[in-house]
């Protein structure tokens, strides 16, 4: 197991390198530059700026300088658009915010989603099932960019209960709406996957055997049915967790949370090369890490899997 994890981590290094190179080349192939605007800059001014950021060097050299900086100094360079800030600074400020609301959303989505799914499966075709399924379908149908403004209209403007945006170091009133908006659709997916998986498991032979043995229903569900039920859920949760902690541009935009989701989208649109690359590496590394975590959890859930 340990050697498996190590092997996976080693493979991650060339994967990340490839990601950086591809992203770097695509970024520079896109038309435009971080310094374009409606005003055409005088050539001399543009030359000064490009010299300052090394953009006047040949592309392979720029890529090399960048990689050396990242590997030797863990320095992702300055932002080209936010002129007095660095990529490290942007991540250090924005990632904790995203991590906080992402993790809380994840926990909420898993707890509520799994409960709804299990309840629906155990009481299939009763009103409980209908409510659970109805809730999760409506939640899925309501995208967060629709839900976010509605939440603010209801809870901030009409009721006056919650602040309409901001982060305020993660004080709870500021976290509530982002968490609702972010977790809802994940929660709905988890509920649906859990329900169908649980139904399948409950109809399988080993559960019938357990029933025949006369085991109490509670033991059957929690001791025998739960683990196999979670298999497809876990395979969904790995990427979902990365998606949540790397933030959502919609959440950052509508709730002014200051997370990195908005920076990521903006950096692509502004051609802020260094921020774009830095965040891509972060996302890539997290994706690789949590795919690994998912696989390890698999091994625990399913004794048939051996690494």
């Amino acid at each position, binding site marked *: 197991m340990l050697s498996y994890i190590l092997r996976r981590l080693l493979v991650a290094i060339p994967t990340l390198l490839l990601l950086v190179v591809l992203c770097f080349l695509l970024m520079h192939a*896109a*038309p*435009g*530059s971080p*310094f*374009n*605007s*409606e*005003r*055409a*800059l*005088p050539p*001399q*001014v543009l030359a*000064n*700026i490009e*010299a*300052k*950021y090394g953009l006047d060097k040949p592309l392979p050299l720029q890529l090399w300088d960048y990689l050396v900086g990242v590997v030797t100094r863990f320095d992702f360079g*300055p932002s080209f*658009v*936010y*002129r*007095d*800030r*660095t990529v490290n600074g*942007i991540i250090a*400020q*924005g990632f904790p915010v995203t991590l906080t609301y992402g993790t809380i959303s994840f926990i909420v989505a898993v707890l509520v989603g799994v409960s709804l799914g299990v309840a629906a499966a155990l009481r299939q075709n009763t009103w409980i099932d209908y409510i659970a399924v109805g809730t999760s379908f409506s939640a899925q149908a309501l995208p967060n960019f629709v839900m*976010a*403004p509605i939440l*603010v*209209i209801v809870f*901030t*403007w009409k009721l*006056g209960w919650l*602040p*309409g*945006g*901001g*982060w305020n170091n993660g004080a709870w009133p500021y976290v509530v709406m982002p968490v609702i908006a972010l977790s809802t659709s994940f929660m709905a997916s988890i509920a649906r996957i859990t329900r169908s998986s649980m139904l399948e498991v409950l109809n399988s032979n080993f559960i019938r055997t357990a029933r025949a043995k006369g085991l109490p229903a509670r033991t059957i569900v929690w001791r025998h049915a739960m683990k196999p039920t979670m298999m497809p859920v876990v395979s969904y949760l790995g990427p979902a967790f990365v998606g949540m902690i790397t933030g959502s*541009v919609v959440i*950052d*935009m*509508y709730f*002014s*949370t*200051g*997370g990195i989701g*908005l*920076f990521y*989208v*903006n950096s692509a*649109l*502004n*051609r802020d090369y260094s921020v774009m690359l830095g965040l891509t590496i972060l996302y890539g590394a997290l994706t690789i890490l949590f795919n690994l975590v998912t696989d390890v959890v698999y091994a625990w859930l399913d004794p048939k899997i051996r690494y």
Partner: protein
Amino acid sequence: MTARAAPPAPAPFNPMLQEELSMTLHIRRATAGLMLSTALVAAPLAAQETAPNGDALAEDQTLTIRMLDEHTSLDPQLIEDVPGSDISRQLFEGLMVQDENGELEPGVAESYDVSEDGKTYTFHLREDAKWSNGDPVTAGDFVFAWQRAASPELASEYQWFIGLMSIVNADAVIAGEMPVEELGVTAVDDRTLEVRLSAPLPYFPQMTTHTTTFPAPQKVVEEFGDAWTQPGNIVSNGAYKLEEHVPNERVVAVKNDQYWDAENVIIDRFVTLVINDESQGLTRFLAGELDRTEMPAGQFPRMKQEHPDEAVSFPRLCNYYYTFNLSESGPEAFKDVKVRQALALAVDRDIVVNNILAGGQPPAYTFTPAATAGFTVPDVEMASMTQAERDARAKELLAEAGYGPDNPLSFTMLYNTSEDHQKIAVALSQMWKQKLGVQASLGNMEWQTFLDARSQQAFDLARGAWCGDYNEASTFLDLLTTPSGSNDGKYSNPEVDRLMLDARTAEDPQANYTQVEEIIAEEMPVIPIYHYAGVYMLDTDVGNWPVNNVEQNWYVKNMWKKAE
């Protein structure tokens, strides 16, 4: 500061699509020795209870406004966007400031003298100007800042502004051919700043209200490097000092007790909240979280009805136009002036401003906005015609040019991604199709790609917008001269070039501007569509928001919150 994109409303997700408006300069021959802004206040108000106009003051003097985007920097010499300049205008103070109407008032400089030849300005700095750490603000702080702005090492985009100021040796310093010490700005003593220009520039004092020219604290900049603008490090000389900055969330500034006129500053806490989405901004305004927010496009009529005292609209110094590609790569058809005139005539601007934007924007028949100081809109024929007359004339002209049902005119019109640009482009193409049978296909591009295509003349007809760098017609009309780097349509008329060049030294440049507008109205290198309006929701308890300042260079130190 120019319009990077200057759409009427920003598209979500893209900070570069913001309406970047100018920190501009008001043209008015200010005399040396100006009166104090607060001369109306008879006695200093220790614990203020009333505003200068007698308004009763609210207990909580916090002003909270929405910012479209995170500022790109708070370093005055690096600032290139509206949020950055709006915030730093409160934190720093330049030689001159503007009042509610955009007229010049003394800032750090109490007065200035101009030499006979108009090429040397001597600014006399006030004795009591201090940095927030208590150090005096000296002429050397300005010399340091201006040298810094021009230096290739800092590589500010606003090096061009130092060039525009015509300071002696500016170009050579920017090119790295001379050391920054050779820049034509010197500290005669701590309180006397001398600036030498390479040519007389009548609006030079107005340029000293621009963020690029704000002083910088040398010791602090050298101690902290790029991080000197972070809260805790930053030292500033304006009415406010930075207390908190959470990127993409908020900036909090509090009253600076060291400010020379602190006793007349009423607002003691100034907060900006970054809210990208305009509708979200409006909801939060209605919820009472904001004192000011921009109006989402199309919402003005409804808000005006529901909140008549809070919905405000006033003219701004920006235009919105479509430019023909007149270069080699442009379509042959556009080289015919009749085609250009026909397309310009057939645009029903009233539909654009009343039905699409609906925020009080004036329709445009000239390039320069009517709100520009000193500029009188010439009587161009198109403006006085009815739309029916324009349409009839457009049909005639296009037929004369040889286009009709048998030989339909077709081209692509390019604009950058934004809901409002799209609505306007669709409306224009429909008008042309219905009235003239013209096939205008829509080309929508993401902002950076759009800029690239436009600057390389890879278009037929392209959207453009410009906000004045200073409040005078030349900031607009220079765009249509041959040497202008932003003349993407490559219109070139020696007569226009000559008139604009002469205007720089002319006794009355306005006559030249009028002539240029008349030439443009005749030759139609661009189709002016509308001029901008500032459309806000502004809380009634905000006292003295300068709606008459067309450049919207506002100073929180001149405002107050009324008791309600």
